[in-house]
């Protein structure tokens, strides 16, 4: 068979299998993003709280999840949760069998890693906003939550955007690791195709190109968003 037949959609080719892998990869990255951002934001808030214990706790969180290899975090979550849930089932004496979803495990693990990096980005963005912005808001009698939402947050997003864009690229690349816990993403699907057809270079080359195209598309979208966010920036 020629390369085109191998990559075609339908019964003979692997095109549809690989396309479903692309879908999984994109879904996983997009599903992780909001959680990672949200947790990262709250960890950043905790890092600059007045409360000593909260600060330390947030610092420990980032130190741990930035220090561990992403692959190891993934295995820890995947196997650890499986064992934990099994134990809970035994303790509660439930009569159910439970299969831990590798998509959820991937989401949790990538979310932990993403949020710990994101918290650092948010933290430095917070520090880049002058104190006068808060004080000005308070002087006008604006409530604290409103100052946060309408004055600080819009500026924060703009400052944090380049850093977050970098993290998105990292996240996209890290999704390749979930193939190791059996999720049918790009790497796994092309890997299966490579093993079955013995055209290893072709299929791994395809996954290489697919990731490259995803990165290319992301950088186009990101530069659009950045242009949008800078619209209000007076020069």
């Amino acid at each position, binding site marked *: 068979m020629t390369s085109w037949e191998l990559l075609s959609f339908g019964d003979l080719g692997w095109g549809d299998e690989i396309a479903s892998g692309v879908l999984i990869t994109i879904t996983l990255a997009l599903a992780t993003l909001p959680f990672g951002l949200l947790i990262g934001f709250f960890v950043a808030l905790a890092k600059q709280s007045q409360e000593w214990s909260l600060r330390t*706790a947030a610092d420990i969180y980032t130190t741990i999840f930035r*220090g561990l290899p992403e*692959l190891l975090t993934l295995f820890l979550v995947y196997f650890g949760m499986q064992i934990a849930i099994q134990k809970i089932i035994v303790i509660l004496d439930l009569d159910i069998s439970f299969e831990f979803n590798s998509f959820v495990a991937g989401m949790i693990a990538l979310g932990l890693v993403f949020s710990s990096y994101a918290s650092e980005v948010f933290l430095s963005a917070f520090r880049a906003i002058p104190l006068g912005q808060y004080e000005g808001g308070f002087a006008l009698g604006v409530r604290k939550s409103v100052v946060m939402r309408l004055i600080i947050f819009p500026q924060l997003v703009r400052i944090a955007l380049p850093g977050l864009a970098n993290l998105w690229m990292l996240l996209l690349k890290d999704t390749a690791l979930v193939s190791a816990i059996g999720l049918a993403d790009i790497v796994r699907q092309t890997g299966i195709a490579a093993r079955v057809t013995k055209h290893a270079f072709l299929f791994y080359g395809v*996954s290489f190109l697919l990731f490259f195209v995803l990165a290319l598309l992301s950088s186009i979208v990101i530069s659009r968003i950045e242009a949008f966010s800078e619209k209000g920036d007076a020069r």
Partner: protein
Amino acid sequence: MLFWTAAGIGLIWFLFTSWDPEKFDKYGIKYWTGLQTTLTLVAVSIALGAIISLPIAFGRLSKNKIIGALSFSYVYIFRGTPLLVQVFLIYYGLGTFRAELDALGIWIFFRDAWNCAILAFTLNTAAYQAEILRGAIQSVPKGQWEGADSLGIPRWKTFQKIILPQALIVALRPYGNEIILMVKGSAIVALVTVFDLMGETRRAYSRTFDFQMYIWAAVFYFVIVEVLRNIWNGLELRLTRHLKR
């Protein structure tokens, strides 16, 4: 904080109660060799990558459009795709060309997962290091070049004695981050049958189904990264002490 204290105590208690001298005898030494494999892999590929990154960084700085475009695409391609896929492409993918590689007599090199991992890691880190170096060289103000020019100092000497020392201070922190990233990234070679720290951990886990195997790996990786980070902080403090006011 309460959560982390509880988690820390729980972790120590878990490791303490599941301590098994028999497993320690059997797998302790494996972890040690795995650790050495990981560190060797990182050290070799960082060093080789540093050499390869030099021409790429100069290519990025070059005024020649073709050279600039070539080195830019190298950097963009290797930074835009996952390291895991690069390793797979080299280790499994090049197997397709076995006959051709055999004819060239270099199949022996590509047959070994260890060599392929080193090659992939070197090419990957070279792209990142080239960007670090380029950024650092460009961060040195233009006036430094012009000042040296007006004193009649040759360009190469200017670069060597004036630009590079200033650039390397800027590059220090990113280099440290890159080493840490490589230590963490090296865990993926376990997926191409190299028995580094992660590989030994997976093997031990698949034989014992004992979760503490992964916990121990986490502890080791954490210690390596923290030690590196602190060494680097100390190094930076010492090398930039003339810049402190």
